């Protein structure tokens, strides 16, 4: 049955009535009308739905909406909420990374988190952080260039 749930998303407080077991993704997309996180698999296997919760990348397709508590949620669209692209977004723009682009939430949000912890990662550290994310258009070469670029921005 529906439950009243509070969410802090991109710096704004929201209250929704939702099935507590509903994955966060649907609260973001359907209830709040935020379109950035994408449904890719619903199985936490691809990353297209990735958001940050308190700075940690989380697969929102598999995270029950009632489990977030007071965690601060950041979506990809929230990174540039002040009108200026985040340096990771800018690096991905400069490198013209995406083809279809449907997977980008995963790569961008995970890279944001990586660079917070490891501002100057080696290629091996980049791979460690990004392994498991899927890009079906196979833009891996551009992704690596963009992450390296973001790390030097």
């Amino acid at each position: 049955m529906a439950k009243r749930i509070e969410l802090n998303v991109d710096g704004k407080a929201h209250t929704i009535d939702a099935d507590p077991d509903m994955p966060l993704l649907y609260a973001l997309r359907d209830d709040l009308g935020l379109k950035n996180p994408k449904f890719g698999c619903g199985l936490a296997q691809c990353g297209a739905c990735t958001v940050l919760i308190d700075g940690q990348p989380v697969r929102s397709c598999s995270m029950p909406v009632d489990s977030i508590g007071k965690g601060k949620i950041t979506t990809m669209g929230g990174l540039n909420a002040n009108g200026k692209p985040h340096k990771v977004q800018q690096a991905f723009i400069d490198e013209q990374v995406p083809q279809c682009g449907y997977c980008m939430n995963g790569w961008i949000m995970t890279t944001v988190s990586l660079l917070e912890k490891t501002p100057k990662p080696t290629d091996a550290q980049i791979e460690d952080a990004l392994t498991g994310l899927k890009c079906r258009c196979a833009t891996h070469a551009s992704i690596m260039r963009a992450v390296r670029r973001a790390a030097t921005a």
Partner: protein
Amino acid sequence: MNSHINRRHFLGSAGALTVSVLLPGQLAQAATFGADKRPPLDPKKLASYISIRADGSAIAYFGKMDMGQGTDVGVAQMVAEELDLPADKVIVLAGDSGTSLNQGGASGSTGVSHGGATLRNAAAEARYVLLELASKQLEVPMEDLSTANGVITSKSNPAKKTTYGELIGGRWFETEVEWNGKVGNDLSMKTRAKLKDPKDYKVYGTSQPRRDVEWKLLGTSDYVTDIKLPGMLHARTILPTVAGSVPTAVDEASIKDIPGAKVIWDKGLLGVVAPKEWDAIKASRQLKVTWSVVKAPFPDQKDLYTHIRNAKSIKSGGSAKNVDPAKVEEAFKGADKVIEATYEWPFQSHASMGPACAVVDYQPNGITTLWTGSQKPHFAGDGVAKVLGLKPEQVRGIWAAGPGSYGRNDAGDAAVFAALFSKATGKPVRYQGMRHEGSGWDPKSPASIHTIRAGLKDGKVVAWHFHSKAFDRLNVSSNESDPSDNLGAQMIGYAAKPGLTYATPEESYAFPVKQQTWEVIPPFLELVSPLRSSHLRDPLGPEIHFANEGFVDEVAYATGQDPVAYRLSLAAEQRDKDAIKAAADKAGWKTRTAARKEMKGDIATGQGIAFSQRNGTRVAIVAEVDVNMKTGKVHARKFTVAHDCGIVINPRLLTQGIEGNICQGLSRAVHEEVMFSKENVTSVDWLTYPILDITERPHEIDVVLINRQNLPPNGAGEGSMRPVVAAVANAIYDATGVRMRQGPFTPDRLKAGMA
């Protein structure tokens, strides 16, 4: 065909979209022209191809679209070149049957070679018309006028000048043009103007930026999945767990606790709708359904190739250059040695990044709108019209960026699901599949076996026969205008109309007798099959050339020749030789007449070459691999790609497109194989259908662009996908001495080969 075109009259007068959907480019169009003022779309009217805005910039109406490789940018450059405008002064509005003619959608890498060439002609004609207008206005002969940056100036009296904007900005061209009467990829129009001499090109050859990356990374426009209409319902399908089975009883009460959830059931088609997306998903999982009991349709996966080998052939064909089969056999009789090998390739899946999505707003008394990620929105709109019992002119098909598309994936099916559900509910419906549907039920690239025989005499090939036996290339057509090719339409009774066709290798190897043939076998399941086959990026190219180029390698080694030198001796066309040589030189090819088997610890390293043509584009690839001899894991470390697609329009986007094809091709080479049980496809997610991981990426992709300034562009979307698999296999042979003749090249297959 004419009715197909004339319908645009209706669409043209239908007015702007009244719903708030934010698609890239729409604002540019709306800001300049009221949609209601546009003359009806008609290939005889220049206004259907191009217009000039008040500020002198141009809009090209592209009846294809860009799937993320920058095709639209290339088209903008072609149009800009003929109009003497900077590239950023050309807007390309793509993939909307309400604004563009049907140029066939994204199809066969023809975006630039066909679609762009037609709009380039339109641009040349537009410039000609502008010069005519300027000649009158300035009272000077046309020959005295020059154009630059949208300004027309008298050469004899430079004080006399005008601009495109002044002459026609914000108004539509009234010029009639001659077109060739063909709808789709081949639609073209003639221009009275002389096309620009390539030596005068300024915009070709420049790396203009992509136009879609910013909104995709900032999240400021809508994907098809993001479209929301007032009163819209979310829909999901419930597909059988045993392929071929249909619902026989549905317990609607089983979902009565889910707010607004409703069942839609029509023969084999079963779906649920609900106002909230999560509720639709829950309902699809919770609904109690009884299914018909059917015989399991598939063989054991391990028997796939035996099945193909033994299956009856229902259609055969071959290269147009084939000779009398008796002559081929005669040539083999003259050989003193015949060598033969068989190569096998599995079903592969589009497995697009997300399951396909479509939104349909069914309006029986007005215009029904389809928003689709399909590569062919015009044709998809026609298919939706048929399945809804509407006239083609009553459906507007609009492409919106979707979760990836590499041919006929599940997007076409999503369009019909959304349409049927919208009609059934009388509400706008957004349908998106779940992951198991996107991977498990998308059309597949057909499994195949390829047998090649070479007759040798005195160490030289005197006879060559390449033969494929495979599932149908087009069990469902990649053109989506016929519901027979659609999963949902088949579920409600449309009969299958298989295309029964295949393909042959493309190269210029000059064997004295060269025969290329194929035969197609029946599908396991005629209708509603999760293994129905269709086009996946570079349809059949990777597997056919895996076999062809693998066997060329085999013959080279069998006759004591270096694989590069051997190909150079075989290639009859200079462009083929140039590409092979360019790749080998840049890669630092190590000449050899046997596998080198270089070892560093447990790692064997090798280098392999493969070459192919694709509709005139030539690509040679040298792959360098590391094979872990303990684990059997292959890492393709480096690729050197020599790429000749005629004139290069945008070097950076071309290079990035090639890089994408290399990595996607590598994924198909080392990972991708659709698994199935006797009952259904079991590759249903990323664990059961793995693709390339960032840790497996090539560390270097070195691209050599061979620019043919005086040759037309041949198309670059898929050519570099074609020889990737073969190059990897040939490198594995050099590293290990193991000849891979069955893909993908998984550790198990490598270890079996090394045992």
